């Protein structure tokens, strides 16, 4: 019997469309995995199901009732409980208070004591920490708390959004074993996971989501027959995200030769901690002049922290950073800009109330010491806008652009600062696949024109297709470094990136 | 319930206001009186008393003087500086009034002076005791001040206390940082010293402070015989309560600037006992009617009865002050036979009537004010449930009683 049915779901934020006609079902007692790359719309799907986001079209039917426009708090009472992405525990409340809140609505409240016993049995560590403030728990413990809190609501459908995010492999295994145990108790589960291997290890069925639509549905039969899930999944991702496959060999040759002996950026023994958490540890990287360097690694590996350290948004706890031989750690972001470092952000940071062209002009105006006139700036932004393909939307307010377009806008804005070194943080995320190919060409052209690029990207094939050299990060440390071919061949890298498969016990 | 009565009276008051200002113009000639008052905002208490006094005065003349209908142009100055300037400008330049009454709060009167200078109409000021205001209007023959100057608050009690308890006693002063306390401090210091007292402490408290005990405790250390509080009613209520509670053991307490004395007593309760203050008016005094104009200046008890009947409350200082000032103005206009401001001013200066406020006669002051009435104050003490007049001797009906 079908418990949850999504049909033709459309949703987005502001002007952007994230879900574009999504169909999905979860049966009674079923465990379903929802897979896809970053920005595919997985979390948005979860937000629509739980009512945090109102869909602009389509229907959500739960247990035979159309709940499309129910407010969020009513859905929880109906038995839809989410363990949200990023855990979202209540940091200043104790573990037990968090759990009690999980059973806030009357239907669950009646069984609170019983539920508490159950989740404590499932997660013994939480019983030990029951008096502790949730904010002081470790990441893994918070994840367990988020799941336990969702279970406290006596869900008919349990939604798990990235339960493996940022967890150490050991804890990961505990978490997934627990998910399996929960599944055995007959609760339907919809699981969003980046770690496809782990997800498919517990799920009976899987959907692959791409650009707001289901592009592949893998049945239980296929699951059992297919020996190598990874291959299946990888192929799917590559096919959907990259219609015209770019070969690893087609790197710009000119840049290869032009490698300068002196690195433009030298990072030595870099370390950064947040409270007890080590985000970046003893990291040393050289970026050669005119190099195209790719940095990959799973979520939480410290990639964005690295960029924040280079650009002065964060100060290192230890280590040094040199740009063109000058020590730059401790400088502010605007100093870095003036010194020729440009950057895009992982989370879009365009200026929403300014038009596209004004956004880019801002980039052109203040980048170098010598001030230029407005007219000059207007002239200068034409090329970056053309490069990213926004020349026809110059007067549109940035806030109304789609996510992918905003990413392009950020790229154009960074380019307008005329950087020597360009740092890109998931600049492709949210772009439709035709655009990905186009953007790759753009980046190649920028690189060919002499700009050094350091790029973080989730789309592995993109990095493989562009970068001359790749650094793989995991838990803040350098796991591997080498040419794209070497990286693909290394089993350690593959495992880190796509996760360890669990066998169905 | 009294709350509903408040509403009823406000509505009635509002309707009266409408009647006064908005009456249909008759063919009859009109005398226009500008009244910039604090009808809203934090000094609304003064403005509403002023409005009541005016209404009573218009009523006493049945709305007519010298064959002219009295038209009162009320203007709300919203208790703000700018409001005062705007209202004055509006009255002077647009309405071209020749007669003004108000505003009342010291700061707002001060703010209105420059605006008044533009055309200098005949201005009755039933407020503002600050000497800086006296300086500002020194030599101005068109300003008629009907409120005691700051020193009036201090000479009376100082002399009375000196007479009763002899010289050489120690005086402590507690004053607020507002316009009132600041402007009175030098006067109080001067007059108590002149009367033979020794000032042993002056302590400052903030306006609207939640706790005045620190200042009181510092004063306690100096063991004064007399404590003088220079602050307005709002702070006066707090300080009286705190003095009572702190059991300072000071036998003589002098409060200054409690124009709403009855309101203050009601709010302070038992702690008001023993307090001495100088007042220009207090309901319940035996003041006879004016022999010539008994209808306009009736005996205090008759006027107070009429007031209480009309407003269902006892009149306070400003009710009486504005009534008396307005009534004197109307009388002067009547005697001048019309609205020529020079002639009216002359008639006002020549007036000598017996009012509920005492003798209604304008005289110059040493400080430079040309027309000053009601500068005399009498000193009262609250003893038990009674209010006893202790000074001047001629009026007194009791003796000082120090607090045990």
């Amino acid at each position: 019997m079908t418990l949850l049915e999504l049909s033709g779901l459309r949703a987005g934020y502001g002007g952007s469309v994230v879900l574009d006609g999504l169909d999905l079902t979860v049966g009674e007692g079923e465990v379903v995995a929802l897979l896809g790359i970053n920005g595919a719309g997985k979390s948005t799907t979860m937000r629509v199901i739980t009512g945090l986001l109102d869909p602009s079209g389509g229907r959500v039917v739960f247990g035979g009732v159309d709940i499309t426009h129910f407010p969020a708090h009513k859905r929880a009472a109906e038995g839809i409980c989410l363990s949200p992405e990023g855990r979202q525990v209540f940091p200043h409340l104790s573990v037990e208070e968090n759990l009690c809140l999980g059973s806030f609505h009357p239907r669950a409240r009646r069984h609170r004591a019983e539920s508490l016993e159950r989740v404590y049995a499932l997660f013994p560590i939480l019983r030990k920490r029951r008096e502790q403030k949730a904010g002081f728990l470790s990441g893994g413990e918070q994840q367990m708390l988020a799941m336990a809190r969702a279970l406290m609501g006596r869900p008919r459908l349990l939604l798990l959004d990235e339960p493996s995010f940022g967890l150490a492999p050991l804890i990961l295994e505990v978490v997934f074993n627990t998910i399996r145990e929960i599944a055995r108790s007959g609760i339907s589960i919809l699981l969003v996971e980046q770690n496809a291997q782990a997800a498919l290890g517990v799920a009976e069925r899987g959907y692959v989501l791409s650009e707001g639509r289901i592009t592949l549905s893998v049945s239980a039969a296929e699951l059992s027959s297919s020996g190598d899930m990874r291959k299946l999944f990888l192929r799917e991702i590559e096919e959907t995200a990259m219609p015209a496959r770019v070969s690893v060999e087609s790197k710009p040759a000119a840049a290869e030769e032009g490698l300068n002996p002196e690195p433009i950026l030298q990072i030595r023994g870099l370390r950064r901690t947040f409270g007890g958490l080590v985000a970046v540890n003893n990291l040393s990287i050289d970026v050669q002049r005119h190099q195209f360097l790719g940095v990959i690694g799973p979520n939480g590996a410290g990639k964005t922290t690295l960029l924040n350290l280079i650009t002065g948004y964060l100060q290192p706890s230890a280590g040094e950073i040199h740009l063109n031989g000058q020590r730059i750690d401790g400088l502010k972001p605007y100093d870095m800009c003036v010194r020729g470092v440009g950057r895009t952000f992982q989370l879009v940071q365009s200026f929403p109330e300014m038009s596209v062209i004004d956004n880019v002009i801002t980039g052109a105006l203040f980048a170098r010491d010598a001030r230029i006139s407005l007219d000059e700036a207007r002239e200068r932004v034409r090329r970056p806008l053309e490069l990213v393909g926004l020349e026809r939307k110059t007067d549109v307010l940035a806030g109304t652009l789609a996510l992918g377009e905003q990413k392009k806008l950020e790229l154009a804005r960074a380019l307008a600062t005329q950087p020597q070194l360009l740092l890109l943080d998931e600049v492709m995320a949210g772009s439709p696949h035709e655009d990905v190919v186009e953007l790759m060409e753009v980046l190649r052209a920028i690189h060919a024109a002499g700009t050094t690029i350091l790029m973080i990207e989730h789309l592995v094939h993109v990095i493989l297709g562009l970068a001359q050299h790749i650094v793989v990060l995991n838990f803040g440390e350098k796991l591997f470094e080498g040419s794209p071919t070497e990286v693909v061949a290394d089993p350690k890298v593959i495992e880190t990136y796509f996760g360890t498969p669990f066998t169905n016990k | 319930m009294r709350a509903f009565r408040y509403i009823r009276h406000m509505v009635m008051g509002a309707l009266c206001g409408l009647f006064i200002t908005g009456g249909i113009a008759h063919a009859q000639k009109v005398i226009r009186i500008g009244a910039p008052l604090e009808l809203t905002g934090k000094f609304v208490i003064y403005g509403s008393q002023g409005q009541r006094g005016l209404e009573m005065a218009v009523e006493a003349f049945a709305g007519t003087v010298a064959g002219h209908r009295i038209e009162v142009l009320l203007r709300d100055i919203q208790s703000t500086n700018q409001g005062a300037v705007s209202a004055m400008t509006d009255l002077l330049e647009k309405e071209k009034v020749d007669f003004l009454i108000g505003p009342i709060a010291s700061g707002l009167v001060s703010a209105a002076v420059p605006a008044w200078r533009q055309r200098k109409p005949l201005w009755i000021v039933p407020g503002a005791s600050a000497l800086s205001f006296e300086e500002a209007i020194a030599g101005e023959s068109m300003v008629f001040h009907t409120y005691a100057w700051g020193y009036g608050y201090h000479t009376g009690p100082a002399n009375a206390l000196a007479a009763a308890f002899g010289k050489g006693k120690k005086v402590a002063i507690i004053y607020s940082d507002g316009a009132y306390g600041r402007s009175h401090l030098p006067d109080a210091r001067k007059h108590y010293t002149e009367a033979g007292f020794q000032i042993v402490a002056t302590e400052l408290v903030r306006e609207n402070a939640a706790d005045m005990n620190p200042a009181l405790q510092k004063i306690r250390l100096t063991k004064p015989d007399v404590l003088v509080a220079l602050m307005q009613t709002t702070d006066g209520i707090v300080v009286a309560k705190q003095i009572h509670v702190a059991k300072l053991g000071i036998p003589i307490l002098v409060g200054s600037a409690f124009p709403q004395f009855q309101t203050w007593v009601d709010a302070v309760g038992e702690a008001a006992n023993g307090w001495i203050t100088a007042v220009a008016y207090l309901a319940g005094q035996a003041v006879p009617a004016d022999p010539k104009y008994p209808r306009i200046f009736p005996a205090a008890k008759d006027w107070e009865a009429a007031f209480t009947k009309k407003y269902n409350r006892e009149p306070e200082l400003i009710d009486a002050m504005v009534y008396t000032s307005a009534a004197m103005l109307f009388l002067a206009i009547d005697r001048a036979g019309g609205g020529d401001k020079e002639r009216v001013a002359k008639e006002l200066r020549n007036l000598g009537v017996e009012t509920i406020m005492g003798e209604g006669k304008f005289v110059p002051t040493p400080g430079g004010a040309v027309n000053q009435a009601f500068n005399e104050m009498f000193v009262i003490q609250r003893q038990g449930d009674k209010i006893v007049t202790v000074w001047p001797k001629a009026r007194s009906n009791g003796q000082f009683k120090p607090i045990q």
Partner: protein
Amino acid sequence: MTLLPQFLLDALLLGGLYCLMAVGLALCFGVTRIINFAHGEMIMFGAYGAFLLSVHFGIDPLLSLPLVALGVALIGFLVFKLCVQRVLDAPHVNQILLLFGVGLILQNIAVLIFTGDERSVTTAYSLASDQFFGMMVAYGRLIAFAVSIGLTVGLIVWLRISEMGRAIQAVAQQRDAAKLMGINVTAMYMVSFMVSAALGSATGAAMSFLLTITPFMGFHILIKGFAIVVLGGLGSVGGTLIAAFVLAFVETGVSYYVPEGGGWAEGVALAVLLMVLILRPRGFLGQAVDN
């Protein structure tokens, strides 16, 4: 004779009063992220409520407190339903101005109903005091202190152990996650707004026998409450408690030990606030505040 014991006592008692002035404001801000510029008027209505019931029915302000709190909570409910609910997602400036306007309306309604006359409640205890260990203990202030601490602790306990209190904390800490728990966020906003108004009215009731009641008493109390809330870390009830006492000790200390200190006290308190803002923008116990 030393002033020290009296200073400590005065500061402590004043701290209690300050705490009550600010705690409602802190609750409202902590949960809804709205600075209630009309909070001073809630305090004022509380004071008038206590005054009227005391004068006309002889009910002691302490006894009438629940009734008054209920009435003012009702005013809070109306303000929330008619105005605040519509600007929950609007910029701070819009909210501030809106509530300033509401405050202006309430203030002038109060003038029409109660007139501008200064009032104060007189009870047996408000004028009683005794000497202990060289300190003069004013019973009125002691009772106000007890009410204040009682209500603040009551609020903290209610927030901690009651179902609704925890839900309100949840809303303050993670709005989206709270919705996922089945918590109706708007309803919680309304409840906190009403509880905040009720706490404001309790402040007024406690002040009714110590200080002077006028329709305009709210504004300067609001400013003081504001300073305390910011010092405490915007919306943290515990931080507010600490900040109230810090401010009370600083002000009272300056009043006692600096010549003309009574006048400078407030300035010094504001200087402390400015300093804390610069050195530690999140206040003493700032938490979960996005800036």
